């Protein structure tokens, strides 16, 4: 499939290492923050979300951290696998259904 973005920031990690993908957001009134994964040629897929009144949330092999003081969101992927190679987007919901996506980070996992 075709890449979804040729000029995205890229993070390259070794298989088995942990990955940390960062995102800065602008609206302090956002209710929800979400991480999506987009593989080449496909639509984005929901990974994990966090409400604005939380600092940390864990899923299977993924953890999202929210630092409201500096408006920073991160996604940590434990024991990164080749199947994790994709573009990762953070997104925010600011009241209602309108979702604003960040620019995305390409994760490349080296076997």
């Amino acid at each position: 499939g075709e890449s979804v973005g040729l000029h995205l920031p890229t993070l390259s990690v070794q298989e088995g290492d942990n990955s940390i993908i960062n995102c800065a957001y602008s609206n302090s009134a956002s209710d929800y923050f979400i991480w999506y994964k987009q593989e080449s040629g496909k639509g984005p897929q929901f990974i994990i979300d966090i409400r604005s009144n939380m600092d940390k949330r864990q899923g299977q092999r993924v953890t999202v951290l929210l630092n409201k003081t500096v408006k920073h969101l991160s996604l940590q992927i434990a024991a990164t696998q080749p199947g994790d190679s994709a573009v990762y987007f953070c997104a925010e919901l600011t009241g209602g259904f309108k979702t604003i996506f960040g620019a995305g980070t390409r994760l490349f996992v080296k076997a």
Partner: protein
Amino acid sequence: GAGVSQSPSNKVTEKGKDVELRCDPISGHTALYWYRQSLGQGLEFLIYFQGNSAPDKSGLPSDRFSAERTGGSVSTLTIQRTQQEDSAVYLCASSLEFTYNEQFFGPGTRLTVL
């Protein structure tokens, strides 16, 4: 059941022509969203529909863009008098009303305007 489907998967058109892109959401999902993704860019919000409420059209880039959702299900995004800068992947997503934080995306329609 099936996920979100979109048609066509690819559309090539000439500048100035009108195009219609179709989205079939997941059955039972009351919210439907359209996004545009240009090469090298993130997802740009265009419009969303939720139940019988008036749609939020705040992301539509110009009056050449419009969208309808008939019967609370299928949606059509129409672009009139297409321009080359309209070339992008158009993504549709749907969600349940109270879990709108989790949207399910279709595979997108790749639009190329020559």
